[in-house]
């Protein structure tokens, strides 16, 4: 029952647009609902990266804790965004912290399971990697714009 309604959420999401039915079903079988309170830690830098997330509602801070400066948000992700790609590349550890800034609901996907299936079935692997590549490039573009400090004075 839960898988069926998760399936429809996944089908609706533009991220999985065009994915074959059997793959959608498989991905849905790796998914569960999750929710986080405001200020709750979602994952920490250095921990095993075994999942990725779809944010369905709320706001999450992707941040690093810097000695003497505390946690610094690099970027926030919100409703409709995908969070986490470290599950795809060895050593499969989180590079950043993630913390809910507001009450947040998400779908969490079992990365270990999906990874194993992708190794087995390279077609699925390609479909997943294609989609994650777009997410990464979008984030990279956005990060580069942030780096340019466009609103600063550059006299």
């Amino acid at each position: 029952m839960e898988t069926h309604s998760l399936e429809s959420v996944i089908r609706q999401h533009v991220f999985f647009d065009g994915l074959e039915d059997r793959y959608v079903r498989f991905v849905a079988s790796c998914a569960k609902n999750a929710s986080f309170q405001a200020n709750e830690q979602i994952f920490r830098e250095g921990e095993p990266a075994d999942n990725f997330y779809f944010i369905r509602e709320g706001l999450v801070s992707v941040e690093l804790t810097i000695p003497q400066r505390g946690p610094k948000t690099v970027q926030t992700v919100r409703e409709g965004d995908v969070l986490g790609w470290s599950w795809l590349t060895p050593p499969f550890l989180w590079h950043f912290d993630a913390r809910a800034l507001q009450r947040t609901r998400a779908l969490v996907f079992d990365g270990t399971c999906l990874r194993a299936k992708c190794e087995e079935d390279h077609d699925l692997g390609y479909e997943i990697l294609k989609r994650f590549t777009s997410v990464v490039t979008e984030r990279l573009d956005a990060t580069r714009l942030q780096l340019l400090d466009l609103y600063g004075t550059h006299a």
Partner: protein
Amino acid sequence: MAHMPERAVGTEASDPMVPLLYRIEGKKRETHDTFTLDLRPKNGSRSVLFEPGQFNMLYVFGVGEVPISISGNAAAFPALQHTTRVVGAVTKAMSLLEPGDTVGVRGPFGSHWPVAEMTGCDFVIIAGGIGLAPLRPVLYSLIRERAKYRRIILLYGTRRPEDILYRRELEKWRSKFDLEIQVTVDQGSSRWKGNVGVVTTLIGRCAFEPAHSVALLCGPEVMMRFALMELQKRGVPPEQTFLSMERNMKCAIGFCGHCQFGPMFICKDGPVFRFDRIAPVFGKAEI
């Protein structure tokens, strides 16, 4: 729905290079480098009602003149409001003026944002940094006749939380009028619990209907370039996308030649442009 921003002919003086005198009635420090002046015409200075998106040339005695967008409510005519960022000698001198002081005003000049003709549309307003100032008069106009328009969405990005302009007003608008306002900063702070990241990331998942939307953009050119890409991905037609451009200006009346951008004079063909009209030269390096 094709619309050409119109040119309103400003300045009543017989010599369009001679300013009229205005008095500073109020001054507010918005951020560490940005301030707002409230101006009112002195006796004998006739003023022309402005359209949102237009600008004035403001003259500081003995220092010089700068083009500053009008950032206030057209309904407060003949009072004028200008939000200015300190970037050079004239703006620095202007920031040191106080209520009671006199400034010279020439204008209003330039084309304006399309508002009245866009009834029934979704408005997607994308502002970066000081770019919110020339867009603020649009928001006043939209709010004044709220029922005529559908969704009104403001996406505003700036450098840090302490650089956010018109913070109280944004809060008020968000709560009282049916507007969606998303604010984001490039660099967060420990107290900031909102969006961190460039404003272009807010466009993709924003709820508006591209075919019936009008997009208004104002901010650093690079930000506008990337915002345009996102709008294009969403399917907002170039004929329904408007940007405000900026170039060096010395006269504001099409004589000095400084503000040329391809074949356009920013002072009289702009500063507000319908995107398809400038698409051939927009984004080309050193044009």
